């Protein structure tokens, strides 16, 4: 099937919902949006099943004669889609998880004043995300890149202050979160664009399959240029994926509705950075320094996210910092050139993190918009189904065998062990922290006594069905890629091996067993620690300064506030004062002139008789002058 069908269906859904939204009553708009994405999923599935070789479809020429190449010929920039196994996997994740989240949203957003608008934005997001992953050139990828950013902005601020269902104060903070996401992404976009410019300057083309086909000829460019390209693209990826140092927008993005957090800020959009680096693997393979940067950015972000997640109280913020941390894992993997491991973790993370977010959404829904874990607890008795799927999600993210996170995290840790012991240590510590904070999340929400005042109840079938499917995927997803020492064939890595370089594992089976044992032990230890600390409704156990640092996410937001926002506000205030000064000068000149005028208007009193006096005086003076002159002067 033609590739353009994939983004076409959600785009049609978007157009119908945005233009004729008022004609869709009840859940009709939601069903339309869901069907559009489901059709895309069918197309994606058919395409993936019939994919013997990468497909490259050129639709039309976008910029004819965009530039002249070194030989003086005009270069055209076409719009086209490119589907290989990497982008095919991404389309499956986007449309598959997207469909489930659309179904969930029909129930979750029920009764919202802008129900149809919500689905229009979601469809727009899915279309843009598909364009991003299927783009055959960097500029087209950038179109999708900006499109998903726009969708993210619109959906984070969905409950803005003007929305009927939003509290005014909360609405303002939602809008601010949306703007923060957009502005911080701008910083990354600059890097992406500079990277594109440099690629064109170095190689004379921006078409990804053409670049990949150049193979060894890519190394002809200066090595410093290749490194610089990769570093610029890393800046772009860092912005989109909420990595250090541009990470603070992602936790704030939880202001959006929960399905948005699940789809955009956990499963798909934020993984675009990982996808960009995996897509550009042919350059990163030639750039060892930039790759090391990628890996360290990932490792440090993983640690940062995990520490920040330790003491959050918002049920979604815990998951948001967890997303930051897991994205750090993926960056670590692609930075170490273990692309298949990174993409594998991207896949499993999409399953279990979407599952956890949707479960959190069900809890928030059941408790009437309560998000504070201190006011939850003991929900396993009233919401048994959601409890079970959440437990599966926690087991998956903690890396407990047989769940999906175990396999993917293990492959990343193995790669780290092979290449960089420091990153491996960080990875193990993060695994421990991950198991701990997810255990804390689980015990605070589901075990112990209920500490709130609402009357929680299980959600409907539309809420539960996507949770069930995602739970199944989070359980079984790992079996796609069973490592060889466990008797598997690394099916997914082999499959991806057609488009991504796969490294032959050099470490022995005994070592791999050891590494796996360490990872599992660390996971069990973290969960056990959380059990000991949080099972009896205890809320605060960490020493005060650790607690404070974690809750304020290592003061990064305060740092930006003081280093960037405050000086900017200061400059703005200065300019404002200057402006007022200029204004005041002009006002003052005008005032003085009219003051002078007022002095003169004293003469125009409006009294006829005073005019007569002045006439008399004037005449007398003139006559006197003539008289003096006629008499020969005063002498």
């Amino acid at each position, binding site marked *: 099937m033609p590739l353009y069908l994939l983004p076409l269906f959600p785009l049609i859904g978007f157009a119908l919902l945005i233009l004729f939204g008022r004609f869709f009553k009840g859940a009709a708009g939601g069903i339309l949006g869901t069907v559009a994405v489901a059709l895309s999923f069918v197309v994606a599935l058919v395409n993936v099943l019939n994919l013997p070789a990468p497909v490259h479809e050129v639709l039309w020429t976008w910029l004819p004669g965009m530039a002249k190449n070194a030989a003086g010929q005009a270069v055209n920039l076409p719009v086209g889609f490119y589907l290989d196994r990497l982008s095919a996997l991404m389309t499956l994740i986007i449309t598959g998880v997207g469909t489930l989240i659309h179904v969930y949203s029909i129930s979750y957003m029920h009764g919202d004043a802008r129900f149809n608008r919500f689905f229009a934005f979601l469809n727009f997001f899915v279309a843009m995300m598909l364009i991003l992953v299927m783009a055959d050139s960097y500029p087209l990828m950038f179109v999708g890149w900006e499109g998903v950013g726009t969708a993210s902005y619109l959906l984070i601020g969905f409950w803005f202050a003007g929305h009927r269902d939003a509290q005014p104060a909360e609405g303002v903070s939602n809008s601010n979160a949306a703007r923060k996401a957009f502005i911080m992404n701008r910083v990354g976009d600059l890097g992406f664009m500079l990277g594109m410019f440099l690629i064109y300057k170095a190689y004379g083309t921006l078409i990804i399959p053409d670049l990949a086909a150049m193979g060894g000829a890519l190394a002809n460019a200066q090595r410093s240029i290749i490194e610089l390209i990769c570093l610029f693209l890393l800046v772009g990826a860092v912005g989109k994926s909420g990595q250090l140092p541009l990470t603070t927008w992602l936790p704030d993005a939880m202001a959006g509705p929960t399905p948005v957090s699940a789809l955009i800020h956990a499963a798909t959009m934020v993984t675009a950075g990982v996808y960009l680096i995996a897509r550009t693997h042919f350059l990163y393979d030639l750039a060892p320094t930039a790759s090391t940067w990628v890996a360290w950015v990932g490792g440090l972000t993983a640690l940062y996210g995990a520490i920040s997640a330790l003491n959050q109280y918002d049920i979604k913020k815990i998951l948001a910092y967890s997303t930051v941390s897991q994205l750090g894992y993926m960056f670590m993997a692609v930075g170490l050139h273990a692309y298949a491991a990174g993409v594998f973790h991207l896949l499993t993370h999409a399953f279990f993190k979407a599952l956890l977010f949707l479960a959190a959404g069900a809890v928030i829904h059941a408790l009437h918009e309560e998000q504070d874990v201190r006011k939850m607890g003991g929900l396993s008795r009233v919401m048994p189904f959601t409890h079970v799927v959440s437990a599966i999600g926690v087991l998956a993210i903690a890396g407990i065998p047989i769940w999906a996170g175990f396999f993917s995290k293990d492959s990343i840790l193995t790669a780290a062990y092979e290449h960089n012991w420091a990153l491996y240590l960080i990875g193990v510590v993060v695994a421990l922290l991950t198991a701990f904070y997810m255990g804390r999340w689980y015990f605070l929400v589901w075990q112990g006594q209920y500490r709130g005042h609402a009357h929680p109840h299980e959600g409907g079938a539309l809420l539960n069905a996507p949770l069930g499917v995602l739970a199944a995927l989070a359980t079984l997803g790992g079996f796609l890629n069973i490592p060889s020492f466990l008797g598997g064939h690394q099916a997914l890595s082999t499959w991806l091996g057609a488009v991504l370089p796969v490294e032959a594992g050099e470490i022995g089976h005994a070592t791999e067993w050891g590494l796996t044992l360490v990872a599992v032990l660390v996971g069990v230890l973290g969960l056990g620690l959380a059990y000991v600390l949080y099972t009896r409704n205890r809320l605060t156990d960490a020493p005060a300064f650790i607690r404070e640092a974690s809750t304020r996410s290592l003061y990064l937001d305060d740092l930006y506030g003081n280093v960037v926002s405050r000086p900017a506000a200061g400059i703005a205030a200065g300019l404002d004062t200057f402006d007022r000064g200029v204004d005041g000068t002009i006002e003052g000149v005008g005032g003085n002139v009219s003051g002078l005028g007022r002095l003169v*208007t004293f*003469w125009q*009193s*409006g*009294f*006829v008789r005073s005019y*007569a006096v002045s006439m008399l005086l004037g005449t007398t003076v003139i006559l006197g002058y003539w008289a003096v002159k006629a008499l020969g002067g005063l002498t």
Partner: protein
Amino acid sequence: MVSTGSYIALSGILFAIGMFGVLTRRTAVMVFLSVELMLNAANLSLVAFARAWGDLSAQTAVFIVMTLAAAEVAIGLAIIVAIFRKRETTDVDALAAMKG
């Protein structure tokens, strides 16, 4: 024969009386009357000078002034009547709407 100087003196006295009236009277009609007095004082001096020099051109000027004064009375009184109908007063100090 009365000397030209006496005529001029009378004319000056009349003019001063008229001037005094214009500056002190607040009723528009009285101000108007005083203006007439000043005009006729000027006429008297013109006629006196005409007799002194034996030249009739100054008398011609007097006729023009008398015609103008008649026209001015017609228009001026009409304006005063209109103002009185509008404001119910002819006090010139109350008519200070043109104050700057």
